[in-house]
């Protein structure tokens, strides 16, 4: 770690890897070597085989550890690889308490893979601390939080849930993908493991698939490090480098996109064809106060429900600017359809129960000028309203 107390945006650019010590290069070199020559028969060097440790991947791991204010970072080949590897900290017979509107991929992992290994789970509404407490069992070994949650942007009180976990002797996992350490640092709120789909805001350019995990406790770090090495779902060096390159603009990207999200959420709220807007930055969001207390901002993702599935369909067919695709946290704005995309792995009745209806859209605000996005939405909504008026005649 650096000995300077720089602000976050400076730390993104200045860390222990800002120069290559051998050449003075200001960009971390990409070490493609899969194996490393050993010069001492009895004592091997720091690097032997790239799965166990690679200087380029290590640079990213050090950087994310510093940004999350942890001690050890781990880079994986995808967000799901990071999450799955973290779940391997558990054993058969253990139990997990998990956010009910968790990302569909995590839902799938818990309900169709971990259950085969005899790891049980209970889904709860993490915003309701009493239900969290009630869900804890004697064999609960982990509480898994996603906040703000995907796609309904429900906010969990990280500190309160981590306290419950601690009392129960369970680990707390926090998926920090939506906010990144630029806005929220779960380890400082008591979390044991922070997880990221680094594909999203951290990398930010829709061109890398990556996952990261960060822990503070050295003993936990040793266990997770050993799992990373034995499971082997490590991040490739090219991708590690691209994530580091993306991180350099994290602060300016988050700032711009969040400002855009605030503006767009306020705009959508006023539209008659929009039934509901989910964004923790709105003053009337049920957990607005908790959000403000534990993070520096509400981030750049919001969801909104249109009045009907029909309106939803014409809206998606008419908007021109955002990409209609899965994923989030990119330079380009992405409009997603949770029911058929991120949460397709969740049965329809489970989805509906959680409020993920067939007319819900998730918007990840990119780096466009927000006025261009609003203009695009406005054109689509006006068009739909016209069509409705004609139909009414």
């Amino acid at each position, binding site marked *: 770690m650096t000995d300077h107390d720089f602000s976050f945006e400076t730390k993104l650019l200045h860390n222990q890897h800002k120069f290559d010590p051998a050449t003075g290069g200001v960009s971390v070199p990409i070490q493609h070597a899969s194996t490393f020559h050993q010069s001492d028969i009895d004592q091997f060097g720091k690097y032997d085989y790239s799965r166990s440790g690679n200087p380029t991947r290590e640079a990213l791991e050090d950087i994310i550890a510093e940004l999350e204010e942890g001690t050890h970072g781990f880079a994986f080949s995808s967000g799901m690889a990071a999450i799955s590897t973290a779940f391997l900290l558990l054993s058969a017979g253990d139990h997990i308490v998990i956010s009910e509107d968790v990302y569909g991929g995590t839902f799938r992992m818990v309900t169709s893979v971990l259950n085969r290994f005899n790891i049980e789970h209970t889904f709860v509404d993490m915003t309701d601390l009493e239900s969290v407490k009630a869900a804890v069992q004697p064999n609960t070994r982990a509480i898994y939080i996603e906040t703000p949650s995907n796609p309904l942007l429900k906010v969990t009180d990280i500190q309160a849930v981590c306290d419950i976990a601690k009392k129960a002797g369970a680990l707390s996992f926090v998926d920090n993908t939506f906010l990144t350490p630029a806005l929220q640092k779960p380890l400082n709120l008591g979390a044991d493991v922070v997880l990221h789909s680094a594909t999203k805001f951290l990398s930010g350019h829709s061109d890398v698939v990556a996952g990261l995990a960060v822990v503070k406790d050295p003993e936990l770090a040793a266990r997770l490090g050993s799992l990373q090495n034995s499971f082997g779902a490590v991040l490739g060096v090219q991708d590690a480098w691209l994530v580091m390159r993306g991180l*350099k603009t994290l602060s300016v990207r988050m700032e711009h996109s969040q400002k855009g999200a605030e503006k767009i959420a306020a705009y959508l709220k006023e539209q008659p064809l929009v039934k509901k807007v989910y964004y923790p930055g709105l003053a009337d969001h049920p957990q607005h106060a908790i959000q403000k207390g534990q993070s520096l901002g509400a981030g750049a993702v919001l969801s909104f429900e249109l009045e009907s599935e029909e309106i939803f369909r014409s809206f998606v067919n008419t908007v021109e600017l955002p*990409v209609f695709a899965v994923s989030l946290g*990119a330079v380009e704005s992405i409009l997603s359809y949770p029911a058929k995309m991120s949460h397709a792995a969740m049965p329809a009745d489970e989805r509906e129960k959680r409020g993920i209806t067939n007319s819900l859209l998730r918007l990840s605000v990119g780096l466009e000028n927000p006025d261009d996005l609003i203009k695009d939405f406005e054109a689509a909504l006006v068009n739909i309203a016209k069509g409705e008026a004609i139909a009414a005649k």
Partner: protein
Amino acid sequence: MYKPETYLAQLGNRSETATGTVNPPVYFSTAFRHEGIGQSTGFDYTRTGNPTRQLLERSIADLEKGDQGYACSSGMAAISTILALFKSGDAWIVSEDLYGGTYRLLEQGFKKWGLQCDYVNTCCLEDIEKAITPHTKAIFIETPTNPLMQQTDISAVAALAKRYNLLLIVDNTFYTPLIQQPILLGADIVIHSATKYLGGHNDVLAGLIVASGAELCDALAFHHNGTGAVLSPFDSWLLMRGMKTLALRMERHEKNAKILVDYLSEHDCVTDVLYPGRGGMISFRIIDEAAVNPFLQSLSLISFAESLGGVESFITYPATQTHADIPLEVRTANGVCNRLLRFSVGIEDSDDLIGDLQQAFAHVKREALR
């Protein structure tokens, strides 16, 4: 037309329909298959045209409001490609405050092949006009100049160039099309060291050319392919990746630069601050030459390195780095003295940058200026 930051954020999006990819693929293919004789997809051999590079070339042409773009393997390769348009006996009028690499290429390279260059203060229209001879074929300007930040009135020079039937070439590296669009002001060719702000991360070496007018564009395409100093597909892709955040970076560079100009102007170790009013580049003179090296050595956040326009702050010493190839008397007469430092302000927190300068100046005062 969308606003520039919208255009930049979506650069390369919707570029192909086969897969719906949001991010353009990198085409490493050196050759492209033909269905039959005379049936080309538009791509034959990658030096002549490559789909990834073409996307970049289209983007920079759109941003600069020109007709066609050309991606080259470095900023100097871009200038060399343009120089191929001329012949022995031709002459250029060039900004006297000029990047050292351009000066070296002209004086140690093209002079041998009969290209004469007259260096004038291009901020002064009369000086330019006085230098025009029947051999003059082009005016080459940097604005703002490197490192003295002098600005040239592009429209006025463009009018003069038209009157004498000269090509006007503008190096737009310092401002980028977000601040200045020389073609709209009458320039024929814009060049960039895209290694700087456009790439923005100190990890790609690249040059770009944009030209306006069909005949000129065809001639440049001929030499771009013929000389072959083209940009690789991967670097083209990496450059576009950088350009997606150009608007955000530029905004922060400029905001920080203005804060630092205020700070430096007030400091008693600094005699002059040169800032053209926009962008992220500043030059300043330290009170005493003896203080320069101790100052550079005590910087701990800002890197002492050549180059500019990246996310990290750099301070450069033009006398021994960028302008070492310009003879001492020429350089000093122009104002590039041994007390001059050039500061490429990054996107860090401005308080952290001031903190670093502050401790470096304090060190200099203690150790070097007693």
